[in-house]
Structure formats: structure tokens, C-alpha cells
């Protein structure tokens, strides 16, 4: 990270901000939300608080400007320079300007306002550009998903060099110890890990974890009971790596290591087969996740940080794969543990988080706790 020479910083810990001119390409509410989330990215790391005012002079004046807007740093139209901000100080200090000629968005179809605003507020708080490509304060644009965003380490070090760390809140004593939760679902609710595999099977959703699996109706959270895998799939035993169903065929596929089983409902059809039937290269020894997409009738297989696409109609692996998962599904962070398609969304399970990915918008639209799917 780098600080501005002279290390200008704010000498107070509550800063006001005001959005004096809004973007042409987003609603005011969307702009306010993105700006608020961008400021919160910093206040989560240092003891600074941000208060929005709607009139008068704020410490951080935020505005969307076009071309020459009077601060001797004119904007240049679409692309190129996206925004700039001034180091802490009186008057222009801290002010943050966005080029109104850009297409600003909350998602990825344009420049993500949260991403750019979080970067610019780093300047407004006293950070210059970082040479660390993974840092938020790196000069060039790289989309960051606002949902589940965590300030990169380099930026935390930089901002805490100026303002120190945010102390954990030690206010009033913690709430009296709650009676231990009745162990509804033994250990998965508490664990931060994800599921091994998730698939539809007929009208039910199945979640696999170690030796256990859960069955539930898609729209009903009631009647979720854990049961052992061997009770329904004796051959699978435990630790299913991946699973998917081709509903129109009434067939499901369960993967463990280099083998897979075909089932019709809960009936296993014959002995295990090798995954190389699908056309995987020999160096692939196991699958992390699999999801069948109804529309193109293709199955995506996730292996490490890459994925393959298998054409179920032609029954062969598509060319030009594997591809980088992050590039195609950016916004979905971490390795994919399991995936399932429901009603036009792909749900990616990665560690304790589930990313709801809108296939049409090609964007993550929400992030929930994985364990909430089984009633935690």
C-alpha cells in the first residue's frame, strides 16, 4: 500500500458525506446504496463513522461530473478515467468525483459503482495507489462483488496505518448466555463448511455432507430430516463429491473420486463407471461439483478453479474447456463445493456461503448461508 506524502488523514472519526449530483445511469436509491456499502467497507476496518447529510458542505462531497468540472482534472468520456478523489483536507479534500459518461451499475453490466467508490474513498481517507494487484487500491478497474466483500489485506494494513484498527465492540456485557440450542441438526448448523453435493431428485432437493444427506421439498422448509447415505444409497456409503439430475431423463448421476453411479430416483442402475466416460482428461481424479442446465441441456463440471461443459444431447464434452470459473462466474468467490439449478438461477455452494447466480443477468444477485437450506 502507499500513503500520500505528508500522510494527510482526517483528525476526527465521524465524517459527513453528501451526494450532491447523481449518476445518469442508476437510480438515486441504487447510487446511495452503493456509496453506503463502499464506505462501510472501510469503516469495518478502522474506527471511522460516516454520516450522510443532504445539504451544505460535507467532508466528502460525492458527485457525478462530466468533462471539465472545475478541479483541473477533467474527465475523458466513456472508459479511460472512471473517477478520482482528493486526499483528506479542507474544501476539496476528500471530495470524490465519478465520470458521469460511464455506464454505472450495481452489477457487472457496466462499471460497478461499489467497486470504484470503495477505491476512491480509499483516496478520500488518505491512501494513494497500491502496487499490489490484489489490492482494492490498485489503479486499474477489476470488478468486486459487493455481497460478501472483504477488504483485501494490503488495504487493511494501509488504512490501519493511518487510523489504527477498529476495536471490537466491548460495550454492554454480552447478552446472558442463551440456553443451548436444541441440537435440531447435530453439527452442520454450527460448522462453517459447505455441502459435498446438492442435486434435485424428482421433486426433492438432496443435500449431501459426509455420511449424511437431507431431503426437502424445493419450496418447503418443513420436514427436513438428516439420514445416512447408506440407508438410501448403500453403494455410495459417504462423501459424495458431486451429483446432478437430468430431469427429462429421470436419471441422476452421483460422483465419488474417479467413479460415478447412475440412478433412477433412489434406484442405482448397475455398477460404478469411470468419469472418463464423460471425456475428462486423465489428470482429473475427482469432480468438485456438477450442475445440469435445463435450457442449453448442458452439464457444468467444476474441478478446482476451472469448469468443463458437457453436452447432454450429444453426450460429449464441449471443446475449448476447461475454462476459469472466476472469469465466467465472477462474483462467486472461492472453490465450488456443490451447485444446483432452480428456476433460472444457479446456486453455487462455496464454503459457508451460497451464491444465487442469475443466468440471464450473468450476475450474483444474492448470497445466503449454505446451512439455511436445511433449516439452520
Amino acid at each position: 500500500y502507499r500513503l500520500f506524502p505528508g500522510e494527510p488523514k482526517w483528525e476526527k472519526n465521524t465524517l459527513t458525506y453528501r451526494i450532491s449530483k447523481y449518476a445518469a445511469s442508476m437510480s438515486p436509491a441504487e447510487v446511495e446504496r452503493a456509496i453506503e456499502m463502499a464506505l462501510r467497507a472501510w469503516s469495518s476496518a478502522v474506527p471511522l463513522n460516516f454520516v450522510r447529510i443532504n445539504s451544505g458542505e460535507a467532508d466528502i462531497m460525492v458527485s457525478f461530473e462530466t468533462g471539465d468540472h472545475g478541479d483541473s482534472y477533467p474527465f475523458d468520456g466513456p472508459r479511460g478515467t472512471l473517477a478520482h478523489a482528493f486526499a483528506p483536507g479542507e474544501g476539496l479534500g476528500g471530495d470524490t468525483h465519478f465520470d458521469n459518461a460511464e455506464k454505472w451499475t450495481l452489477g457487472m453490466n457496466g462499471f460497478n459503482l461499489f467497486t470504484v467508490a470503495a477505491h476512491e474513498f480509499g483516496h478520500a481517507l488518505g491512501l494513494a495507489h497500491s502496487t499490489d494487484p490484489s489490492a482494492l487500491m490498485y489503479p486499474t478497474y477489476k470488478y468486486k462483488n459487493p455481497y460478501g466483500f472483504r477488504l483485501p489485506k494490503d488495504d487493511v494494513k494501509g488504512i490501519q496505518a493511518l487510523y489504527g484498527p477498529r476495536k471490537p465492540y466491548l460495550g454492554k456485557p454480552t447478552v446472558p448466555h442463551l440456553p443451548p440450542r436444541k441440537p435440531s441438526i447435530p453439527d452442520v448448523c454450527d460448522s462453517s463448511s459447505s455441502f459435498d453435493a446438492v442435486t434435485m431428485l424428482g421433486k426433492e432437493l438432496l443435500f449431501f455432507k459426509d455420511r449424511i444427506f437431507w431431503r426437502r421439498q424445493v419450496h418447503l422448509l418443513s420436514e427436513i430430516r438428516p439420514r445416512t447415505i447408506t440407508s438410501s444409497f448403500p453403494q455410495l456409503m459417504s462423501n459424495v463429491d458431486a451429483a446432478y439430475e437430468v430431469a427429462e431423463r429421470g436419471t441422476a448421476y452421483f460422483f465419488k473420486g474417479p467413479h460415478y453411479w447412475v440412478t433412477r430416483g433412489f434406484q442405482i442402475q448397475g455398477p460404478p463407471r469411470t468419469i472418463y466416460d464423460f471425456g475428462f482428461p486423465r489428470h482429473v481424479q475427482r469432480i468438485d461439483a456438477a450442475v445440469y442446465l435445463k435450457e442449453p441441456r448442458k452439464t457444468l463440471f467444476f474441478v478446482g478453479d476451472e469448469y468443463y461443459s458437457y453436452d447432454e444431447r450429444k453426450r460429449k464434452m464441449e471443446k475449448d474447456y476447461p475454462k476459469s470459473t472466476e472469469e465466467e462466474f465472477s462474483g462467486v468467490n472461492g472453490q465450488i463445493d456443490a451447485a444446483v439449478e432452480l428456476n433460472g438461477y444457479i446456486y453455487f455452494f462455496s464454503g459457508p456461503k451460497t451464491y444465487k447466480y442469475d443466468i440471464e443477468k450473468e450476475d450474483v444477485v444474492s448470497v445466503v448461508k449454505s446451512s439455511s437450506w436445511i433449516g439452520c
Partner: protein
Amino acid sequence: APTLFAATPRTWRNNFHLAQAYLDKYYTKKGGHQVGEMVSRGGNSMVKKIKELQTFFGLPLTGKLDQSTMDVIKKPRCGVPDVAN
């Protein structure tokens, strides 16, 4: 001066002007309210500024507007200079 980069004349000219504007904006000291620049002694020839840019982005230090340098120059970015004073 060594050729700044190998390219067709038209691309050469476009890239040169693009690069000149970029270096002027992000690697040159300006007057007015300092949004952030570093003071560099004795003025900067273009080659020297290109090397500053290549150092910042961890590119090979050629002093030329080679492909990887032009790729960086063409990326959308923040308007705050990389060398701040």
C-alpha cells in the same frame, strides 16, 4: 532515441498519443490542488516515465511502449496519479 515500440505507423501514432496523455495524466507533476503526484527531479523524458509506469505495474523495464505496457494504458482506471506528492 530508441524506437518506443514496434507497431504499424497508424497504430504507432495512436498508441504514442494515448501513451503521452496517460503519462501526462498519471506520471507527471501538475500545479493546482494536488490530488496526488510525486515530485520527480530534473523533469521526465517519456522513456523515463514509461519506466516509472512499468515499475509500478511490475512490467519488464523496457522503456518502450510494448504490448504489455499498452495493455495497461488501455485499461479503465482511477484518475488519481500513480506518483503522488
